[in-house]
């Protein structure tokens, strides 16, 4: 709604005054917004008004790029709700807009933002919002403290362009953030950012549950772990697998990509990295300075970064916190799937794999194994357990549960247990990016072909096929031999 319209309403009784008022306000507005230099606080007259389109991660609203300063209405509802944190694990999240992270807000430098924060009547807690894009006490927190069943409103001018975190700042602040109350607001510089092909929104955050990583059921928040900064989960977009597997980000070879990355914390700084990509440009900490040719960028808790790169090769790219145990053991793993044709000059793939024998020693021929004796299940199970822990558990986990969205489970795996070859073929050949479906979930990735003897493969499979609820007959060495020779 234009400013002139409000003058119109006020002056309605007299038609003459209406016209006069309309004309004057338009002229005033043009003069102020167009010709003169912005005042130190850049509180230029607001021309126009719209309600912001908010998007949920991984999506980013389209930049609107308008020439004048506008009033932007932002409506956000706080909802406390139980959602999935990982497979079989749920958590009572406190959310902006029903998701973790909260909605992406995109406005333009100089805009007047009118924010309406509603607290759902079914919530138990009061909530508020502190936007790092605000110049003012508490970033809006004091102005928006809202009891369940109420809506608070405040407005602010976005004077500084950049990418900013917003979060709840109601006591106890740490717990509100730890329960998922954070999101990003992008204040577009005047004139906008250069156009790219795809933009995505990712936000890291860690969760402190009473139960250990993977412990099933509704998990309560653990204050002691939060104070010690020892999370059970470190995730992108609010849950393990929220941006991998079926939910992976997707692009094509040649696409210019821009990622808006936030870190809600509450505690950990992120060593943000995309495996196999180099960022052409990084706006570190979401600021205005562009850094180039960066592989890993640090994102503080309560901070953000914009990274840009070009997809040169097809494949699946893992997006990780390169504080690497978080990625492989706690869930900080997203994926970007790039489709298109390979360029062998940029990336050859494996050209060859030959025997390496330092000192020129002659490879000793493995002695022909005359007999492949059948062993009882208990013996192969025991040997297999040790071999599994050494060779398999770092990915599939000692629990056999794998990692949702990234590593398929072995426990009660229909994919494994229904195979006519008992899984021998998988261990002999590995899996090379072929899409598979396990218990209804899709996976696509690489399982390396390990150098295991036929005896060892029989032991591992006997263990795997009789653990974590799986039950079947012993797998004997001669079965593996037979499969290998086919």
């Amino acid at each position, binding site marked *: 709604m234009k400013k002139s319209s409000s003058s119109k309403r006020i002056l309605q009784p007299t038609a003459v005054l209406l016209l006069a008022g309309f004309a004057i306000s338009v002229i005033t507005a043009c003069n102020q917004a167009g010709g003169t230099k912005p005042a130190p606080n850049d509180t230029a007259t607001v021309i126009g008004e719209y309600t912001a389109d908010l998007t949920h991660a991984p999506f980013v609203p389209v930049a609107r790029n308008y020439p004048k300063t506008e009033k932007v209405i932002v409506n956000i509802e706080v909802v*406390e709700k139980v959602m999935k944190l990982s497979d079989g694990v749920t958590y*009572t999240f406190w959310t902006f807009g029903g998701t973790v992270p909260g909605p992406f807000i995109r406005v333009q430098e100089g805009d007047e933002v009118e924010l309406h924060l509603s607290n759902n009547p079914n919530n138990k807690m009061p909530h508020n919002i502190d936007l790092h894009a605000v110049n003012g006490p*508490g970033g809006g927190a004091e102005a928006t403290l809202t009891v369940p069943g109420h809506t608070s409103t405040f407005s602010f001018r976005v004077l500084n362009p950049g990418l900013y975190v917003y979060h709840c700042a109601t006591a106890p602040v740490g717990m509100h953030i730890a329960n998922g109350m954070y999101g990003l607001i992008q204040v577009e510089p005047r004139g906008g950012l250069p156009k790219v092909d795809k933009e995505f929104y990712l936000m890291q955050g860690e969760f402190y549950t009473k139960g250990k990583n993977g412990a099933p059921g509704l998990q309560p928040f653990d204050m002691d772990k939060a104070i010690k900064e020892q999370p059970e989960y470190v995730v992108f977009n609010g849950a393990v697998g929220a941006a991998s597997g079926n939910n992976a980000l997707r692009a094509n070879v040649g696409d210019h990509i821009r990622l808006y990355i936030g870190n809600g914390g509450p505690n950990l700084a992120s060593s943000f990295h995309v495996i196999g990509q180099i960022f052409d440009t990084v706006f570190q900490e979401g600021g205005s300075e562009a850094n180039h040719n960066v592989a890993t960028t640090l994102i503080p808790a309560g901070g953000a970064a914009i990274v840009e790169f070009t997809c040169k090769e097809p494949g699946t790219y893992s997006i990780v916190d390169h504080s690497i145990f978080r990625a492989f053991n706690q869930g900080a793993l997203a994926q970007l799937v790039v489709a298109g044709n390979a360029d062998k000059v940029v990336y050859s793939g494996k050209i060859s794999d030959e025997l390496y024998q330092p000192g020129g020693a002659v490879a000793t021929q493995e002695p022909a194994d005359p007999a492949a004796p059948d062993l009882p299940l208990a013996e192969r199970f025991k040997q297999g357990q040790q071999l599994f822990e050494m060779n398999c558990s770092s990915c599939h986990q000692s629990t056999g549960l794998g990692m949702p969205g990234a590593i398929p489970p072995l426990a009660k795996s229909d994919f494994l247990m229904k195979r006519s070859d008992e899984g021998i073929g998988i261990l002999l050949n590995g899996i090379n990016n072929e899409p598979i479906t396990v218990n209804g979930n899709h996976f696509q990735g690489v399982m390396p072909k390990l150098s295991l003897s036929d005896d060892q493969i029989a032991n591992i499979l006997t263990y795997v096929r009789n653990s974590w609820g799986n039950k079947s007959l012993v797998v004997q060495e001669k079965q593996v031999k037979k499969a290998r020779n086919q």
Partner: protein
Amino acid sequence: MKLPAVSILIIFFLLPPVSSHAQVEAPRPVAAHGQVHTEMIRIPAGKFQPFLLAADQKHERHVAAFLLGQHAVTNAEFLQFVKANPQWRRSSVPRLFADNNYLSQWAGDENIGNAAIRRSPVTNISWFAANAYCKWLGKRLPSLDEWEYAAAARPENADPGADLSRIILGWYDHPTPAILPAVESTYRNTLGLWDMHGLIWEWVDDFNSVMLQGGNFYCAAGSAGTANKADYAAYMRYAFRESLQATYTVGSLGFRCAQDIK
């Protein structure tokens, strides 16, 4: 002090007398209300350490002996009050005394509707309504100190190592159920009081007397002046109370009455 607090204090000074005029005749003797006889428990005098201290407060606070309702006021009990005091009907209550959600869980003015919530704590009531109810029975709302002191008592039969904050945080960890459970459904503490934590929030007389976020709260995250920085459960009670105004009604906020010992 921030502006809303000032305005609340002004309301406090100005409105209660008005509301007590609006609120029918003078308090009647308790015996007149046959259906409303929540047992009052004698809380012995004692000292306690408040969670949050104003600059001029002593660390230990003394609380005189008083009576406190064994459980929170139920929908059925509150219905008796509304029937006797029609100005507190949903359709008649002035917006000055309760916001739009007042008694919104009821089917009608004098009709709870859902039988499953008759013995559940009455919620969606404003401070004014809670205060009027207690006065109707010749009672009053407990003070913040009285409530915190009584609520700090451990659950009876609890394990020696049992931690009260676990019960409280357990309540926070679960979304509000569609049907609020009945009173006397959680635990009884060593004073004989039911559901002091884990069922609802409760109004106190001076709910806005300690400001958690006034002034420098955001810089210090409210930790300056707290007796126990790790007591997150207490942070939340104080934050919740602070977000309230006397006309507000909330689906998880009820009350119980207190009484002086004569």
